[in-house]
């Protein structure tokens, strides 16, 4: 009796172990699907775009023929837009984070700001486009200009900056607060001279990651009217502009196959910029993180 029972258990055991093995394979396969598509995407973009990538492509603007079209105007437009976004969102975002972490008392209003920020992060980007259209384009009468696009984008990434700056501030040890206040430094002196410098690497990393999201963002800029084809660089905040993703979108939508190669080349540039930004962020994080 007992022996038979043991046999049965052993048999079932084998089955269970086998099932475990098979499912582990399945889980691994499922994980690789995502990775495979990532590789496919890179491969596809590279093979499509590499042929059109050249110095001329980098230095010329939009053109009616695919062979003559280039990313220059879009690339510089993206950079200009990011400067506006960075100035506005970093000042407002870091200031908000300082307020929430260092000054705000734990009351309902503070909690309300916190909940509001986390909800804002979940609003679809295109809705921010509608916000920008109403306020910046029409109400403030900026029109379809660089500043309207920049402010819209800054509001879009503001929650990301606030949250990452809050985390960076929170990671500064309380010891340093005490040391500074213990010297008779005022609250603001403590923040400006000790807390902010110590939190700076974290804030920078968060900002770069947020900006790298903004630089690839397309939908809200379509709504606030980034131009699809302009031939000169914007020369003021109130000038028309275009950005890389808009150019790529525009080229992708054209029926002739050559335009897809032009778009592919643009994507290579865009992804290269993203890679560069993320590498800088990782570098800053690794360089400074052990220190604290």
């Amino acid at each position, binding site marked *: 009796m007992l022996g038979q029972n043991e046999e049965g258990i052993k048999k079932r055991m084998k089955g269970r172990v086998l099932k475990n093995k098979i499912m582990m394979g399945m889980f691994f396969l499922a994980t690789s699907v*995502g990775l495979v*598509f990532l590789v496919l995407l890179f491969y*596809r973009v590279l093979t499509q775009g590499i042929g059109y990538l050249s110095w001329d492509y980098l230095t010329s603007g939009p053109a009616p023929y695919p062979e003559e079209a280039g990313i220059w105007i879009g690339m510089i437009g993206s950079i200009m837009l990011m400067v506006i976004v960075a100035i506005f969102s970093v000042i407002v975002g870091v200031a908000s984070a300082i307020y929430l972490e260092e000054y705000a008392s734990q009351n309902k209003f503070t909690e309300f700001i916190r909940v509001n920020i986390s909800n804002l992060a979940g609003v679809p980007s295109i809705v921010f486009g509608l916000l920008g259209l109403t306020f910046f384009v029409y109400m403030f009468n900026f029109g379809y200009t660089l500043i309207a696009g920049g402010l819209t984008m800054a509001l879009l990434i503001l929650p990301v900056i606030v949250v990452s700056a809050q985390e960076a501030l929170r990671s500064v040890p309380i010891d340093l607060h005490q040391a500074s206040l213990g010297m008779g430094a005022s609250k603001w002196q403590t923040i400006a001279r000790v807390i902010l410098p110590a939190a700076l690497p974290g804030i920078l990393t968060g900002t770069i990651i947020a900006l790298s999201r903004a630089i690839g963002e397309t939908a809200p800029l379509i709504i606030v009217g980034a131009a699809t084809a302009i031939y000169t660089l914007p020369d003021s905040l109130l000038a028309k502009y275009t950005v890389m993703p808009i150019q790529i979108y525009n080229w992708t939508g054209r029926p002739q196959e050559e335009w897809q190669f032009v778009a592919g080349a643009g994507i290579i540039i*865009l992804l290269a910029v993203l890679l560069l930004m993320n590498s800088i962020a990782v570098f800053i994080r690794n360089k400074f993180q052990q220190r604290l």
Partner: protein
Amino acid sequence: MDKSLQSEGNKLNVQDLIERNKQKTTFGQRIEKIIPWFLLFCAIISVLTTVGILFTLLRESIGFFSNVSMIDFYTGTNWSPWSGDYGVAPLIGGTLLITLIATVVAVPLGLMSAIFLSEYANDKVRRVIKPILEVLAGIPTVVYGYFALTFVTPMFQGIIPDLGIFNALSGGFVVGIMIIPMVASLSEDAMNSVPNALREGAYGLGATKLEVVYKVVLPAAFSGIVASIVLAISRAIGETMIVTIAAGATPNLTFDPTESIQTMTAFIVQAATGDTTFGSTIYYSLYAVGMTLFVFTLGMNLLAQYISRKFREEY
């Protein structure tokens, strides 16, 4: 202590210097008082943004509903604004179809990835795979759109020969690929926070890893997993560029994934890029559709927050 220093020490009295400087510090004191107000002002900008979003969506939607009845908008099944038909159902249908396809792709793949990363992979493997998977979340959506249109659609056309260039299937599929990392990493967090003692208890009874996953980890992490799925769905609903590029611009109340459709977001892009004049009914319809979209995603986000708050209470 040497003598020269002591004599210097007599000459230099730091407390006196501080005392002398105190008279000059009124400027510093003023800064000290102004700064908190400036910071508060900045913190309020995010609140103003929310108020601004609500205000603009509500005001322009009210403008819209004074021209088109709300009942027609929400019950009509024909959306062709250029000829005056404003039944939003086809757009909502399009959004739901895309979301459904994306969910079907992302939930099993994301969950299984999470199980693999949290339960099976060793630390080394996890540290390589997780960041790579998260690269998927950082790729601009316009790039995904390009990928869907120029690669995924032709790929599906190999299987379904009469698939059109614009179709819900490849749009939804690629949206699904995009939200895999969201499901995977949030679910993995939930699984990681299941106490090891629970797992050890099951292993002690001779359970295999798979049995531990099914009987211990998944039930314990259930609400966290659900929250991650709800958040990912919310992302899919709001996704714009992929569907604009790959799923077409045909408002079409259908559940056939091979057809061309139009989502709410794609309509907003279409109307904003077309020659829509400020103040026209079509202009206002942007906001009515935007409002509907906003309500959908906000509902999903609040639901996810509610679920994960309950989850936090459990442990």
